[in-house]
């Protein structure tokens, strides 16, 4: 068995996903600990151009028409083939719509250990995963054989996984990929006539704590006086109170505003991962144990309904003075 660390590069419709860089940063740490090389794996079709800015020692490139877009069965066949032949120490997947679909299947198929939702590795190489909506962390050892992990963002800066020096490309010939059972038919893009919240610099984000649609008015008032835009966590979007274009989080947009104000948002990992790029996060939540306070710059444990009107008044007053 080798000591090398392998990272599955995730891409979708010609874009490398940010989680890939996070994994490369983590992979670099592990490679350091194990004194080994960092491999990136890129599965695609005529997709070499994608890989230029990744900070890996080597890029294993597998080219096949069936790998043009993600399809679980084609990926599974290919990855089991690579892992069997290369016997890496660790394989990192994103805890994402791609990585999560595949890691568990590889683990069962090859009889390898799998740990999910890993946020970071300790200096002695233990994985630390977050569970129970981020409230609990689980720390564990990598097994002696090949270990598979799925990673969540937050533990590493994506920039650390980027590099101007392209890695050495190594081609890996794909296994026989026919009789595939999953086919991509088409991609449906979200309605894009709304504001792009990922480009806004002031965001007022509302969560389930806002309770009713009518109360959204509060957030809108605050947004108006600060010159920002209202966005929301999933439960609010699911209720249809705001369009999907305003969704912040794993299944929505990642945002990097100057100021992000979270009103009644608990701070579930799926939400938090998308806001860590914000300069300042202000969390307003009645629950002192809400995980949002762990990542916020400022927090206040008050009832948003008591605060917002007062805050709007004071902002208006400050603007007028």
């Amino acid at each position: 068995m080798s000591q090398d660390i392998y990272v599955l590069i995730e891409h979708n419709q010609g874009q490398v996903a940010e989680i890939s860089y996070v994994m490369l940063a983590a992979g670099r740490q592990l490679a350091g600990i194990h004194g080994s090389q960092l491999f990136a794996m890129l599965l695609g079709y005529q997709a070499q151009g994608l890989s230029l800015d990744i900070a890996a020692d080597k890029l294993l490139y597998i080219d096949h028409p069936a790998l043009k877009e993600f399809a679980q069965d084609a990926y599974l066949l290919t990855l089991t083939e690579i892992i069997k032949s290369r016997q890496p120490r660790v394989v990192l997947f994103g805890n994402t719509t791609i990585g999560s679909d595949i890691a568990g299947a590889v683990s069962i198929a090859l009889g390898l250990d799998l740990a999910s939702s890993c946020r970071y590795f300790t200096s002695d190489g233990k994985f630390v995963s977050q569970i129970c909506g981020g409230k609990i962390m689980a720390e564990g050892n990598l097994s002696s054989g090949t270990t598979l992990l799925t990673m969540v963002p937050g533990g590493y800066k994506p920039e650390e996984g980027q590099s101007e020096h392209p890695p050495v490309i190594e081609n890996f010939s794909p296994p026989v990929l026919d009789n595939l059972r999953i086919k991509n038919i088409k991609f449906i893009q979200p309605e894009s006539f709304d504001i792009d919240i990922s480009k806004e610099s002031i965001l007022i984000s509302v969560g389930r704590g806002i309770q009713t649609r009518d109360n959204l008015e509060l957030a809108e008032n605050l947004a108006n006086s600060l010159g920002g835009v209202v966005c929301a966590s999933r439960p609010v979007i699911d209720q249809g109170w705001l369009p999907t274009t305003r969704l912040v989080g794993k299944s929505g947009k990642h945002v990097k505003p100057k100021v992000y104000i979270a009103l009644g948002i608990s701070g579930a990992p799926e939400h938090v991962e998308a806001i860590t790029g914000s300069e300042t996060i202000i969390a307003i939540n009645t629950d002192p144990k809400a995980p949002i306070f762990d990542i916020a710059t400022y927090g206040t444990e008050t009832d948003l309904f008591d605060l917002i009107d007062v805050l709007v008044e004071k902002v208006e007053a400050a603007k007028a003075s």
Partner: protein
Amino acid sequence: MKIVVFVKLVPDLVEELTVDPGGTTLDTTWLRMIINEFDDHAVEQAILLKEKTSTQVIVIAPDFDGVDEVLFTACAKGADQIIKLTGDFSSINNHALARAVASRIKILQPDLVLTGVQANNDIDGSIGPALAACLNQPFVGYVSGVTLEDNTAIVQKEYPGGVIAEMSITLPAVLGIQAAEQPPRYVAVSKVRQVMKTSNIDEQPLDELDNSGFPEVTRMFQSETSAHAEMITGSPDEIADRLVSVFKEKGILQRTNR
């Protein structure tokens, strides 16, 4: 057609979660177990398919405190058969569960297996892909819509940023449901109570559990609060004042001077 839905119970995050004195598992004394919300969506999706194409729906769940109610609720929604897997689940993990459940599913031979895309206590990956691998079937996760045609399913898979991929999968297959096409329906308590009187839970003991593939957890702890936010306290007035000064520092207050 036959659909099996695999459902499990997870810790209710509304309760305060603490770590067992042993330090490697959750303390279960105060733990409230509730249906994994994504599994709830999987049940709903199955019932919606049943309403459209009159498929048979079988719901399977491992025995946790409160599972009977979950199963009867599924039955009240329209499931045709409910199965409880019995055994010792004190240290259960998705690898062991997937193998055990797969052995049951092989007997049932469904065309489609639905389960929630993830659960809040997954440590060794979500169960869907593992189950699919045990059954040697394809898997698509993060699904938010399913249509059945002869021997294929057309599914909507959600990607970040609201992009949706439409895919076709040859059946039999396993799907990880993120959201049903409609929010899970409400079942009146009296309906569940009625079902409790008229339907039976089919209890099936599980064979030996094979835990391999589950990583070694050496320590569990409550999320660190070191990187905690600077907390602003006081009356709403005082808090608002402080926040306004934060806005000023950040230079985001545009003067109106009107």
